[in-house]
């Protein structure tokens, strides 16, 4: 049970980090494209980007908390 809890923590957080990386990469990449097309919208696009990142990061952060819980039970 102890060792399996560590493996579970690793799997859950690893997959969460993968999702966060891909999601954030897409968001910021599209924002940079948008800014390059219309530099005057920079402020609006940046604000929307931060909101998008916070929303996408919600689930990977929950996996982080889960990983701590599993780690504590190892």
């Amino acid at each position, binding site marked *: 049970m102890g060792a399996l809890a560590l493996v579970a923590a690793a799997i859950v957080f690893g997959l969460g980090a993968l999702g966060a990386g891909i999601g954030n990469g897409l968001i910021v990449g599209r924002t940079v494209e948008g800014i390059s097309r219309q530099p005057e919208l920079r402020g609006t696009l940046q604000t929307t980007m931060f909101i998008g990142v*916070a*929303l996408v990061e919600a689930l990977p952060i929950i996996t982080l908390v889960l990983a701590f819980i599993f780690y504590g039970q190892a």
Partner: protein
Amino acid sequence: MHASPIIKLGGLSIDLSAVIMLTVTCVIVFVLARLAVRNLSVENPSKLQNFLEWVVEFVHNIVASAMDMRKGKPYISLGLTLILFIFVANLLGLPFAIVTDLPADTKVFGVVLEPTKDLAPGEHSDVLWWKSPTADASVTMALALMVIVLTHYMGITRNTKGYFKHYIEPYVPFLPLNLIKEFAKLLSLGLRLYGNIYAGEVMIAVILGLSAWGIPALVVWQGFSVFVGAIQSFVFVMLTMVYMSQTLVHEEHH
């Protein structure tokens, strides 16, 4: 990891550190707001008045981006309260933490603290008294529950027909999905804030474990945590306004 000072009163478990920290947050926000409105002046505002006027305008823009201002005007005060409270709450755990070593069976208000219950006579347990209140899932879920219940209440009282109709939009078989959506909103709103702030605090504890070598890392991480605290409070208020606008304004047919 440190234990929480939980006491059992009348069948309920009460976390004393959450109670203390919530009170501290309320006092700080209240003092800040009261200091800002002393000697109000139009031509010559004090720095604090200027800052709070900027915050009010910021919240005004958040509400305006989510719904029409004729419907949205009452929610500016809700948004202002939430953003100030959550931002201060997120920041409280960053400067320091207060941990006490307590021997077995320590009593507070005559009730034994849970972490000290089953200790051998010589052992101590580390109890954490000062932390961000939003690093506690019960606090963040309570905030999220309050917001979601408020959106439902506003929807039922102000937009009754539209509110009940939106459960079967666009087609009737979507009903279970719409119900799940409400729960998903509640869970994600609360757990997003909890996860961000709690993970930040655990990271601080990990960096502290590096003692002197961790000082540059801690400086960077504290700065990032202030940023995350601000973003999370902003996103919480933004989502509150979006959910409010979804239940209030549902006359358009997609």
